[in-house]
Structure formats: C-alpha cells, structure tokens
C-alpha cells in the first residue's frame, strides 16, 4: 500500500482514442507505455518516478486486460535484468527508476543488455533527480548512455511530446536493436499538463508466447568472441540505423527562422526555459515564435552529425544549452564542426554555469551574454527583464537573511524512527561518540539537527558495508544504520552477509517500518500488510539468522526508548563476537495514520468506545530548557512564549497534530528529563462504568482540591 491511493489515476490509464488526459507527467508516461503495447513493466520506486510504480501497482485490472506483466523489482539491477526478456523475443518492455543512483545500481545489467542488443523495444525511464529539490549527488545519466551505447531521449517538457517520443522510442529501439533511455527531470515528472490519448495496445507477442516457445542465440550472449562482434555491431550497424531513424522521423526539432547569424542548440528538456529567457529578451512570444533559430535535441545521444552540420553551416556562432557537467554535447558538437571545418563558433559553458539548474533566470543571463558577444543587434531595445536585485540589495531584505531559519527535512510527527535515534543519543551521552554509518531512507534525517548522528552515506543498503573497514579490536565499535528498504535492496548480502562472513564485530541497526517509506510507502518483502499479488510478511530477523547472524535482537516497539537504549548498550559492550544485529520494528506513522484514522473516526461515529491518546506539557512545570526537543525534533513538539513577566524563555508545547506515539513521555522518563509531560487519554463513547468511576473519583478529587484551595491565600489580587 503506497502513501496515497491512485485509484482515480488508474481510470486515466483506461482513456481511449481522442480522450484528453489531464494530469501529472509521470502518469502520462505510464499511459504512453500502455499505448505502445508493452508486454512487461518493472522498476524500483524513488522520487521522481515513484508515482509510475504506484499507479501500476494499483492498476491490476487494466494490466490484466491488456496482458501486461508488472513487477515491483527488488532493486534497479533486478529491473534492468528484467529487460533481458526482450533480447530474444519481440517483446516490448519498460523499466523505471531514480537516476543516477538507480542507474548506478543497474549498470552491470544495462551494459550486458546493450552489448548483446535487443529484439523487442526496451525503454528505461530515468527520473533525472538533478537540481533544486533533488535528494542525491548531482550527476548526469548522459554518461551511462554513452558508455554502454544506449540511446538517450530528452523530450521537451510537454506531455504530447513526451508521449510521442515514447512511442517512437520503442520503434527506434527495435530498428537499431538497442535499448533506449527516456530522461525526465524532477519538475517535468510532477508537471501537470494534457495530451490527446490513443487506445491502449495489447502486446502483439506476449510473455506467455515467449515462455512456450523458447529461443536462444549464443551470439547475443556477452562472451568472446561474440562480445567483440557486439562492439563492431554497435559501431557499424546499430548506430547508423539509429541515426537514420532519428533523422527520418524528425525526432529532433527545428524552430524559428531557417536563416540567422546565430542559433541555439539545446537538450529538449531545456526548451521551455529557453523560450521564457528569449521572451524576456523580446525574441520570442509566449507561444514559442522565436526570432532565433533553435535546434531542439529530443534525442541527446546519438548526436546526429548531419543535423548539427546543417544547423551550424550558415551560422557565425551557436550556443549549446546543456544542463549539468561535463559538457558532453558541447564536446561532441565541437568535434562534428571541426571534422567538417564548419566555422561557427561554439559557446556554451563559457556563458552559462557549469553546474546547477538552468532556470529561466540563469538562461536569461547566458543567452544575453551570448548575443552580446555574437549578435548584439538582436537584443534590440532591450525590454526590461525581470530583476529582483534591487529588492534583494535593500538593507531590510539583507537583514532578513540573518533571520529566516533553515528548515531542513525531518522525521514526521510520531515517526517510529525518532525513538531509535533518541536512544542512540542517550547511549552517546553515556558511552561517548561512536562512528556511525548512515544509509539512504527517512532515517538519514538523523544526520541533521537535533540528532546529528551519522558520518557517511554510501548508497542504498550500503550503510552496514560502509563500516566494513572498521573491523578491528578497539575501545569502541562501529554502528551502522540501514532501513528495511535498503536491507532487501541489497543490504542483506552486502551488509549483513558481509559482516557475518568477515566476523565484523560491529553493531548493525535495521530500521523496519513495514514499507519503503522514503519513496512513498511501497510494500516490500517484510511489509506486514497482506497483499494479494505479493508475498509479504517475510521476517527480517529470520533472514538475518538465515544468513548466519548469531546475536540478533528483535524489538517490536521502537517507542520503548529505555529498552532501545539498553539493547544498544548491550550490543556495544557484549563480549560476544561477530555482528550484533538489532531489528527495530514499528509501523511508519504516516502510513499508519492513513490506514487507522478513518477506522477510528468511523468507530467513534458508530458509538464504539475508543480511547484516543495525545501528549501535553504542563507549562508551569516546564522550565524552558528544551532538552526534550534536543532529543526529539517532533514537528508537533514546539515552544511557546508564556504571558508571564518572570519567564524569559519559552516553554515546550505540543500542538493538536500530536498522534500520541509516546516518544516524548518515554524520552522524558528514560533520560530523566522532567515531569512536565503527560499523556491524556480521552475516552470517546465511554461505557457506563467509565462514567460512573470517573464521576466518583472526580468528586473525591474535587473535594480535596477545594479543601486545599481554601487554605491558599487569594493571590488573584496580586495579578
């Protein structure tokens, strides 16, 4: 079960010829795959392509009708390997993942696939997680496409163009026996737009057909001498076939006037922002009627030499708009022009920044500088371009810089991972700082305030493996943290198996929250929900023991901070050798609330007795030290200023978003902080006994309270 339901979006997948699809880019891509007659789809979730996986997971009926096989792959390597179904059989297949991280994991399979080549069209949808909002290292997928010779599509951010290119991309893959990558950037994936649909296409050849009629050809397998042949095929057959197809089908686009002293060559994905920059310079209207010739590369690999030559032939200078580094296209275009001795000067990274987002603002600066250098007449009267500098340089705004606080992402309210890190913090106070390797997942937020735990992160599921060098006798042990997602992705073997085999005397914490939560709450092997189409409920603890783990502790309630702390302490101090594995399990609160909240509200409505828990702080007991927040960081635990002239510092306060997870009480108790926290249990639809007992008790308590109040001096007069 994913973080949100895609039931409505599934209906969009059924749209037929002439219907208008309106929605998110990544869902338009999903629809395009069905229109292209894919026989199978796989992939691994992660921003920005999670919604593709989620909608397909919810679209069983649609897929069954079409006879399409869908798999949530174990990792990106598994997804890439799935494409081998298209090697011998005329099956169209597609896989998707977050890139470059997913492509890193998949590249072994991709290289093998690209070497032997494919018969059926294969498409790899890569969500290029680059620029603002990205959660990973800043690299380009382009390099992978070039090194393995996989064609790279980079369509204009327009649903119509993207969908069309996917359909053409499968044909391209088939005529050139080469896999194709479709690169879509973060904001294009989550862009709302529309396109006119076609009917979905049932695959002409199905997976079943293939299984029943197996084929093999040793020449398609990467082993000498075939491997040498593959390289020659790539050069002599596949590349020319692809170049002809791209040219003949006009996959790249020419815009604007045919003649001009200067022109702009760009990746398709840059088109919208280039048009906006030209508009600011008075060189285009809002509809893309440009006065500067543009060559839009919807296919960025291979570069079509003849098209480049043709575009540049009559020009004095061209600007290459290519986001990210290194500048592969700029280098390639220089080569094309030098070989043909075409004299157009090539500008690119000299006027545009080497790295970072190419926003309209950045492009405005780059294009302006390019035109100033090469054809200043075009800049004409220089209409005023938007400029925030006068505002930003104002002293009052300068001052604001010192005031606005950073707002790093953090764990959600009630997150079951918070008490794990609170416990680690308590252990740190007792036993000193340890080397902690972090992993990928929500738990990586531990590296930020207030926890500040975790020294490195080396990739998904690689937290444990990244402590492997620290396998020596020392006063302290290494600690590795990994999530359940990372565990099943590869951490079972690369982390735990590795530690068992090498007798690594470290501590390994596996955070099990029943989903791959950071990517949107998808099910995995150890998910606790029953999922008709998958086999869930496979225990992590059993897997760890199965691979040879001896010292394994399963904690079924992470909110028990005291137990968590004691278990960690034991793991760090026990004399037992080999890896010490702690599996800390509690359900992701975001998913739990989504699951449980409607049930509870319904039960209350139906008159069922329900106890709802919430936490609070007694403001006159709280002294305003905020030690509790330094061990928590819960969004619902904040501070408020009291209306009391004697108090300088704000006190802790819990707002009504509290879900009653219990972490603050447990921490206050385990860390011996203070008695300010209380848990309030509100009984909805109380039984008669509840009411009777409460009335009796409260009447006695009320009498006692009045008795004491009478003896106090009346202080109201001093207010």
């Amino acid at each position, binding site marked *: 079960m994913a973080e949100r339901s895609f039931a409505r979006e599934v209906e969009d997948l059924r749209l037929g010829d002439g219907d208008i699809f309106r929605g998110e880019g990544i869902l338009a891509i999903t629809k395009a795959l069905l229109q292209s007659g894919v026989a199978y789809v796989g992939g691994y979730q992660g*921003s*920005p392509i999670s919604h593709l996986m989620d909608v397909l997971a919810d679209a069983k009926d649609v897929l069954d009708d079409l006879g399409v096989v869908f798999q949530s792959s174990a990792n990106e390597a598994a997804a890439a390997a799935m494409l081998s179904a298209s090697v011998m059989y005329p099956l169209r297949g597609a896989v998707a993942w977050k890139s470059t991280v997913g492509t890193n994991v998949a590249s072994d399979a991709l290289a093998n696939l690209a070497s032997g080549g494919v018969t059926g069209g294969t498409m790899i949808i890569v969500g290029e997680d680059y620029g*603002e*909002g990205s*959660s990973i290292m800043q690299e380009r997928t382009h390099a992978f496409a070039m090194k393995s010779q996989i064609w790279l599509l980079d369509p204009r951010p327009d649903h119509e163009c993207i969908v069309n290119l996917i359909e053409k991309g499968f044909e391209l893959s088939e005529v050139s026996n080469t896999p194709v990558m479709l690169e879509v950037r973060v*904001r294009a994936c989550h862009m*709302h737009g529309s396109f006119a649909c076609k009917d979905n296409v049932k695959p002409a050849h199905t997976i079943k057909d293939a299984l029943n009629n197996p084929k093999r050809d040793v020449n398609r397998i990467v082993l000498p001498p075939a491997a040498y042949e593959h390289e020659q095929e790539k050069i002599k057959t596949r590349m020319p076939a692809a170049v002809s197809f791209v040219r003949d089908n006009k996959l790249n686009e020419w815009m604007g006037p045919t003649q001009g002293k200067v022109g702009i060559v760009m990746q398709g994905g840059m088109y919208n922002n280039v048009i906006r920059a030209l*508009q600011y310079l008075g060189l285009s209207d*809002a*509809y893309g009627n*440009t006065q500067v010739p543009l060559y839009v590369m919807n296919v960025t690999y291979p570069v079509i030499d003849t098209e480049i030559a043709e575009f540049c032939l009559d020009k004095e200078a061209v600007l290459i708009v290519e986001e990210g580094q290194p500048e592969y296209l700029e280098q390639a275009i220089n080569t094309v022009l030098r070989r043909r001795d075409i004299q157009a000067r090539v500008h690119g990274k000299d006027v545009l920044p080497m790295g970072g987002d190419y*926003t*309209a603002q950045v492009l405005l600066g780059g294009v302006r500088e390019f035109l100033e250098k090469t054809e*200043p*007449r075009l800049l*004409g009267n220089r209409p005023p371009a*938007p400029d925030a500098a006068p*505002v930003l340089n104002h002293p*009052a*705004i300068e001052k*604001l810089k010192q*005031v606005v606080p950073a*707002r*790093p*992402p953090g764990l*959600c309210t009630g997150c079951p991972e918070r008490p794990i890190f609170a416990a680690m913090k308590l252990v740190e106070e007792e036993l000193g700082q340890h080397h902690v390797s972090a992993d990928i997942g929500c738990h990586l937020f531990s590296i930020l*305030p*207030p926890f500040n735990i975790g020294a490195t992160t080396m990739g998904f599921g690689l937290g444990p493996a990244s402590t492997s060098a620290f396998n020596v006798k020392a006063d302290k042990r290494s600690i590795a943290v990994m999530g359940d997602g990372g565990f099943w992705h590869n951490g079972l073997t690369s982390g735990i198996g590795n530690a068992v085999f090498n007798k690594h005397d470290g501590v390994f914490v596996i955070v099990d929250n029943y989903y791959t939560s950071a990517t949107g709450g998808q099910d995995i092997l150890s998910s606790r929900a029953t999922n008709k189409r998958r086999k869930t409920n496979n225990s992590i603890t059993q897997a760890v023991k199965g691979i040879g783990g001896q010292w394994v502790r399963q904690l079924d309630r992470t909110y028990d901070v*005291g137990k968590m702390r004691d278990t960690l302490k034991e793991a760090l101090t026990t004399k037992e050798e080999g890896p010490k594995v702690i599996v800390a399990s509690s359900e992701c609160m975001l998913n739990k609330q989504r699951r449980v909240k409607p049930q509870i509200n319904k039960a209350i409505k139906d008159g069922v007795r329900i106890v709802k828990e919430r936490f*609070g702080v*007694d403001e006159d*007991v709280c002294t305003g*030290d*905020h*030690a509790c*927040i330094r061990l928590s*960081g819960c969004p619902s635990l904040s*501070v408020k*200023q009291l209306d*009391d002239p*004697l108090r300088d510092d704000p006190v802790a306060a819990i707002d009504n978003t509290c879900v009653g997870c219990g972490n603050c*009480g447990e921490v206050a108790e*385990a860390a*011996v*902080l203070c*008695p300010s926290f*209380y848990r*309030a249990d*509100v*009984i909805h639809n109380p039984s008669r006994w509840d009411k009777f007992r409460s009335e009796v008790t*409260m009447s006695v*308590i009320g009498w*006692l309270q*009045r008795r004491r109040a009478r003896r106090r*001096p*009346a*202080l109201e*007069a*001093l*207010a």
Partner: protein
Amino acid sequence: MRDETVKLALPAAGDATERPISIAIVAMGGQGGGVLTDWIVQLAENHGWAAQSTSVPGVAQRTGATIYYIEAMPLLDGRKPILSLMPTPGDVDVVMAAEFMEAGRSILRGLVTPERTTLIASNHRSLAIGEKIAPGNGIADDGAVTGAIGIAAKTEIIFDLNALAIAHGSVISAAMFGALAAANVLPFSRENYLDVIRAGGKGAKASIETFDAAFDRVKTGPAEVAVPVQPVQASATPTPLDPQLGGLVARLTQELPEPAQAMARAGLRKVVDFQDVAYGSEYLDILRKLSSADRNSGGADKGYAFTQAAAKHLANAMSYDDVIRVADLKTRASRRTRIESELELSQNQVLHTTEFMHPRMEEVMGMLPAGFGRWLGAKPRLLGWLDRRVNKGRRVRTYSLPWFLALYVVGGLRGLRRRSLRHAVETDHRDQWLKDATEAVGTNYQLGVEILQCRRLVKGYSDTHSRGLSKFDKTLAAIKLVERRDDAADWARRLREAALKDGPGKELDGVIQTIKSFA
C-alpha cells in the same frame, strides 16, 4: 564596442509582453500545497486556459520547505503557450506563503517584487528545529519579515490564515484559496472558485466555510474586536482577602522603587504560591536589602534596573522546582481545567492523564531534613541501595484515587520544605549569588544586573538541572576573571547568551576560552 542597441527598432515576434499569470506557493510538506495547486489549475482549465503546475514531492515534503509553481494563460487561437517549470525572480504575480518565515524565504529568493507581486501570507509561525532546540529563547524575530514585506510586495494580504482555517474545521489550503479569490488577481468570480471546491466532493463543506471566511476577511478587514476594558490599575485593586498578604502588598509599595513594583508583585505572587505568606515576607526582606544597595549605587539614574532584575530572578530562585511543587501543580483543579479546554473535552468524554515521572534518590534526599539528608549523603553504599529501589520510571495515573492521593500528600508537604536539605542547598547558592551581585553593583552597576540575570541559566530537573547549575557556576567563575575590566558587563552578557545557545555548552566554553586568552 559601439552600442547599437538603442537605435534599432526591433519588432517583437509576437505580443512578447503577454506572459502567463504565475503563482508560487511556498509551504512546508504536509500543508496541503498540492491540493491548493490542483485547485488553481482546475480553476484555470475550467475557463479554457492552459495551466501547468510543477512541484517536488519527496524529501522536501517531510517537513522541509518546498515550492509549488503554477503558470496559466488563455489559449491564443487554440495555440498552447510554452510555460516555464520554475518561478523566475522578479516575474511572479502571486506568492502564497503558508507560514510567515516561508514568506520571508520567498522574499529572499526574489519571488516577491514591488512591480508585480501580490503576497498572500499567513502570519502564524511554525517554528524551525533550530529555533526550538536552543536552551534559551531561539525564536526568530518575525518583525524583520513584516519590514521586508512592506518593501518587497506590491500588494500584501497578511493575516493568520491557519487559525482561520482551524476555526472553520479545515486546513490552510482552503483559506489561501479564499484569499486568492478575494485578491482579484485572476479574472474569475467567487462562484468559479467555489465550483472547483464543490467538484472535489470530500470535505467540501468545511473547505467552503473556510474559503468564505477567508474571502470575507480579505474584503472587509479584521472582525471588530470589542476593546477589552483596561484592567483596573493596581491602586484601585481591592485589598486582598488575606490580611497578611495585604500587609505584604503595602510593604512592597512603600519599600520598593516604583519601576520595580510590577515585577515585584509578580514575584511575590509566585513565591507565596510556592510556599506561604511568610516566604513572601522573606522575599520582600531580601528585595529591600538589594534595593537599598541599588539606591546607594546610583540606581535612581538607571531606572532601578538592579532591583527590577532582582525582583524577577530572586522569585525564580526562591521557587525552585522540587517534588513538592510538581506534585502540587499536578493536583490542582486549574490544571485539569486547562487540559480539558486544550482538548476541547465534551460532556460525553472521559479524561485520564498519565504522568511520566522518574524520581531518583537525590529528589527524595532533597525532601529530608537537612541534617539527616547530609548524613545519608555521606553513606554512598546505603544511598546506592536506596537509589536502586527509587530510581526508575513511573507511570502515574493522575486521576485514579491511589495515585492522586499520593501526589496530593506530597504536594501538601510544604511544612517540611524550609527545613529540607534541598532548601538549605538552594538558600546557600542563592545567598552566594546575591552577594556576588551586590558586590559588583557597587563598582560596576551593569555587571551587578548581569550577574542577577545569570540566574536564567539554572533550570530544569535532574541532569538538566545539574547542567544548568554547572553552566551558571562556569559563567560566574568566568565573570570573576574580568570583573575589574570596564567591559565586564558586556562579557557577562556574552557569556550568558552563549550558555543559552546550545545544550552541551560548547558556545559557552568557546567564550570562556576567549576570556582566558586575555584575562
């Protein structure tokens, strides 16, 4: 190079000035920015416009700051415009900020400019983690945002959209949609907006109510709040019922300089509430001495800052947090009333509370008579044995009879307090502190005030309390090193501020290192 630009009349390719309406929504994850975005897109599409939105779900959504961006414009002869994926600084028509500091951040990003931008922002605060973890007051000054908005925005619509939404049983996105409708930046009617919400179905009723309230709030301004009757001045206060307390109030008015009286009243109230009237009398005795030292040191010219600070911090020092006080506060009727109103408890609901207490032997020892307590303190093995029995987490069901009675009894042990070990320790510590301050004020007035204010460092319970005390001691020791310097008060203030910056006291250690380098 010759500048040719001005002479050339270059006709625009099209109506180049015609650009889409651009709207940026700055929010934190979980604030419903996605819903609001979809509404605006739907609104535009309902009128045959081209509309495009982009966002970045994922990591930023997990409570971090994020931007949703929308561009929309009518089609020209059926042609679709090319729309941008990210806002361009200086070219945004509407910025909607779901939190006040996020409004500030949008200004820093250049999204709000005086030529173009209507800023719709909620002025409520959702504090960032950095503001919450400081041991002192780390809350950012939002006055700077107010100032910046006045400079950056063309039009501003600022009020607490969050409170309005909560009051109408909905979320901030509905309030922002209403404010957008009222802002008249899009050529659509109020009904057009409401159609979009209605089509959404689920939760539409609460959303519409919130929408309407926000719309009206923008159109007609804040609701007229009846000006509360000014609280009657102190002089007009009826004499307290308790004659002894009345005597104290009279003393306070006679003995203390006027500028310090308000604070002293609050302080008197706190210490009497903590113990009894006699303790209030002791408070005034000490305060009188401090105030005469103040007068002798020329306090009249300084607005009696020393007495004011003393009135505040002495009251806090005298009402230290002990077990008796906690038990007393937890068993008061006003406490339950407060919780009930916070939870909006209805007649048909039953409330219980559970306290998370972790008493240690130290706390028990503090309650014992001073001599006995000291004797026990010198017996580490016995103490350890006892501690193992006492020192554990206890879940206390406050409103069950046995637990309530236990707390009630402890809360009534005030009679033992003034003979207790804890009281003796607190009194010694307090006397030394006041002595230091009084000595200082004679030679360096401001330093005396600063020493008094260092009391702010002592707070919390158990380990937190010990850490606070150790910071206090370190700070006073460091002040000794510079007390003869002219800028001693500045250093004292710097030390105190550093001590309140972080938990472990690294900043404080840094300042002390600096002082040691020259002192």
